[in-house]
Structure formats: C-alpha cells, structure tokens
C-alpha cells in the first residue's frame, strides 16, 4: 500500500471529475512555471497548499513525507547554481548572481511540486486510468496500464514480504549480504510476477476472457460549470501576479 494512493481514495475530492481536478491543478502548475516567480510561485504554492490541507483533505504528515524526496532533489540541484566553474583565476568560485537563480528555481519547482501532489493526493488512479481511452489512447495500451496498476500492488506485497523474511534472517546486516538479498529478491519477484500472470490468465479464462479486459466504467457527470470554477483560481493567481508586476 502506498500512502499517496491510500489518501487519494479517502480524499473528499475523490468524486470530482478528473477533468475538474486536472483544470485546477494544471492551471496552477502553469502559473508556477510561466509567471514571474515573485509573487507567482509563492501565490501558487499558497493556493495549492490551502486547497490540499483544506477542501482536498490531504493529511499533512503524508504530504510532508511524500514531498521529502523531490524537495531533496530540488535543494541539491539548486545548490549547484550557487557556484560557477572554469573561471579565469580559480576553478570553483561563488557565482554572485547564483543565489537569486537558486531561490527562483527552488521556489518555482516547489510550487509546481505542490500542484502535482495535490492532483496525486486527490485523484485515485482506478478512476483515472479507464478514462484514458477518451483522450485517444489505444484501448490495448490502456488495459495494460490498468493491469500494471493492479498487479503492481500484488508485486509490491510480495517484495515487501520477501524483504521482511530476508531481513529477519539478517539478509541486510552487511553490504555483501545486501547485494545477495537484493539480487534474490529481484529474481523471486520476476518468477512470481510471471507465475501471477499465468494464473491470472487461467482465472480470467474461467470468467470468459478472450483477450479483451472490458469493464463497465461508472460515469461521473462532467459539469462545465465545475470546470469553469476550477479554472477561476489559476486565473486569479495569474491576474494578481501580472497586476503586481504592472503596478510596480
């Protein structure tokens, strides 16, 4: 079980049509990327954060844990902008302008990250994936994507249990044991995944499977008014940012 996935099914926004959430989060994302970072990125981040912790009901702890790794990347990547290399006198030197770039890129990326997390934390993939045929993707591909989504949880479960057993037998107590265990885990996972596929084949054949994984997708009505409302927030952010720039 993955924390983002679990939270998505519990989100009060779960019932909203993906297109509505897409408009809201996508619009904010565009604001973060395209508007001047000050105050655009800060405003975007604030709106996304308020929406996430407020109406979208994202648990703050889970949000923080999910943001940790990408924030680490953003920090490492931004820090390298502080120095410049290959100058005339020294090999590595402080870039006098670097901190401004670093802050700007860090702010933009953090705001964008929040928009992505807001979408991920409120949109269950089980409801998003079957709709991908609507945007013109081949149905065979969509079926495979949905199948991967289902099967990855089974595989994840297997890998966790195997890793637990290995750890219990001190399989991660030294680097050498670690390589041995990780290798054995990968191999077991491969064997079990293929075994799973064959068993699922048999199981589905009993249910009339002949090559197509057709299912009944329940419609969520898409109301144009909701899409318009969702688009209003990004527009407001954009208007504020631009007028701030013009007024100064």
């Amino acid at each position, binding site marked *: 079980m993955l924390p983002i996935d679990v939270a998505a099914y519990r989100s009060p926004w779960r019932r909203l049509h993906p297109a509505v959430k897409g408009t809201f989060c996508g619009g904010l994302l565009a604001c973060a990327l395209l508007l001047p970072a000050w105050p655009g990125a800060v405003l975007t981040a604030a709106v996304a954060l308020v929406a996430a912790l407020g109406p979208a009901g994202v648990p703050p702890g889970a949000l923080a844990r999910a943001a940790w790794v990408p924030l680490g990347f953003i920090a490492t990547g931004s820090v390298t902008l502080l120095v410049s290399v290959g100058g005339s006198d020294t090999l590595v030197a402080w870039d006098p302008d670097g901190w401004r770039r670093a802050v700007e890129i860090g702010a933009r990326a953090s705001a964008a*990250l929040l928009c992505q997390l807001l979408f991920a934390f409120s949109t269950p*993939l089980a409801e998003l994936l079957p709709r991908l045929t609507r945007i013109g993707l081949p149905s065979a591909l969509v079926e495979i994507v949905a199948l991967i989504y289902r099967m990855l949880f089974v595989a994840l479960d297997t890998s966790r249990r195997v890793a637990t057993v290995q750890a219990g037998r001190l399989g991660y107590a030294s680097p050498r044991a670690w390589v041995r265990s990780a290798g054995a885990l990968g191999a077991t996972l491969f064997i079990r995944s293929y075994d799973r596929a064959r068993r699922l084949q048999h199981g589905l054949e009993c249910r009339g499977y002949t090559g197509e994984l057709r299912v009944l997708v329940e419609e969520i009505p898409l109301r144009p008014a909701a899409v318009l409302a969702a688009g209003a927030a990004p527009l407001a952010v954009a208007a504020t940012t631009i007028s701030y720039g013009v007024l100064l």
Partner: protein
Amino acid sequence: MHIAEGFLPPAHAAAWTVAAAPFVIHGVGSLTRAVRANPEAKLLLGASGAFCFVLSALKIPSVTGSCSHPTGVGLGAVLFRPPVMAALGTITLLFQALLLAHGGLTTLGANVFSMAVVGPWVAYTVYRLVRLATASLPETTSLGLAVFCGTALASIGTYSVTSLQLALAFPDAQSGVLGAFAKFGAVFSLTQIPLAIIEGLITVVIVRLLITASRADLLRLGVLRRTPDPEPTDEKAV
C-alpha cells in the same frame, strides 16, 4: 535520479517530451503488436510492468546509507528489449510520479528520455557487444559479464543524460553548458558510480538465479541462447 516537477524551464520540458515521443510511440506500437499477435501477452506485459515498477523501488545500499534507485532499467532492457522498455518505462515513470512523487508530469519527457530511452539502449547495446565478444566463454560467464557491463553503463549513461539535461537548462555563468555539465556530473557521480557498480552486481545475482529457476522464461525472452553449462550458482562468486 528523477528530475522533479517544475525544475526544468517549460521550453526544455517541451523539447525533451518531443525528443522522447518517437521512441515511446514506437514502443507502444510494438506493445500493441505483441498483444495482437499473442493474446496471452497482455497479462505477461502487465506483470512485466509491475515487475519494473517494483524493481525500480528496490532500496540498494550506497555510501550514504540506502537509497531508492532505478535498478530496473538495465535488466528490463535485457529482458524485454529497448522498444518495449520505452513503453513500460514510461508507464513506470508515470506511476512513480503519481504514486510516489518521484519525478514530475511536465518533466516526464525528460525523465523518459534518460531512463526509458537512453538507459535501455545503452544497456542493450553494451549487453549485445559483450555477448558477442565473449561468445567463446561459458554461457553463464558470458551472460554475467554482459549483464554487469550493460547494467552498470546504463546506470552511468542515465545519470550523464540527466546531468546534461540540467546543464542545458542551467548553463554555468562562466563556462556555459560544459561547465554546468561538469558541475552536475560531479555532484551526482559521488553517489552514482558506486551505485552503478552495485546495481550491476545485483543484476548479475538476479540473472544467475533466473538461469536455474526460470530457464524457460529466459529462453522464451531470448536471453539464453543455448543450454548453459551446468554450474552451481554459488552466491559467493559475486
């Protein structure tokens, strides 16, 4: 290393998406052809995709403790071939972005280019070359060497591309793209070179176990050429 959402300027993000698109479209094409030719392939591809996702979430040891790392790229390319890997890798990266917040949606194209296109192609090319060069050696040894070199170089190739993508987006004030590439490369190489070697070793352990336990699958996937010499898989050989 996944480039986070929003880290690349929009023009760069778009350009990398365009660059990755032909490979992904070609990959999806071979995926759908495989399904049409053999209806059982759908479930096997589902299992392969799930396998790639979980493999890429394996924690492996590094100097700084353990870290999550895309272990699957090289092995996936050897097992499933680069075109299929381009499609499966894209799906994996999409799920990583939406389920784990590793990598972003606008940066998906850039990440696909490094991890689902360049990585697999490097892995596969090196793997084939080493296989050819070591054709006279025993099958298990040849396979082990090829898998090790392919995986380790794919890992390094992936990180080089990521560094280049960042360098192009953020050229150094003094020395331009080259200097920035050196900068990003240096920061990442600290952890990435040991990781590449460990990843290579782990993949060798995986393949050696599969030779005993899942030979039929390896033969079907074309990884094994002939019946390998009976040799006990001795874990201490690693």
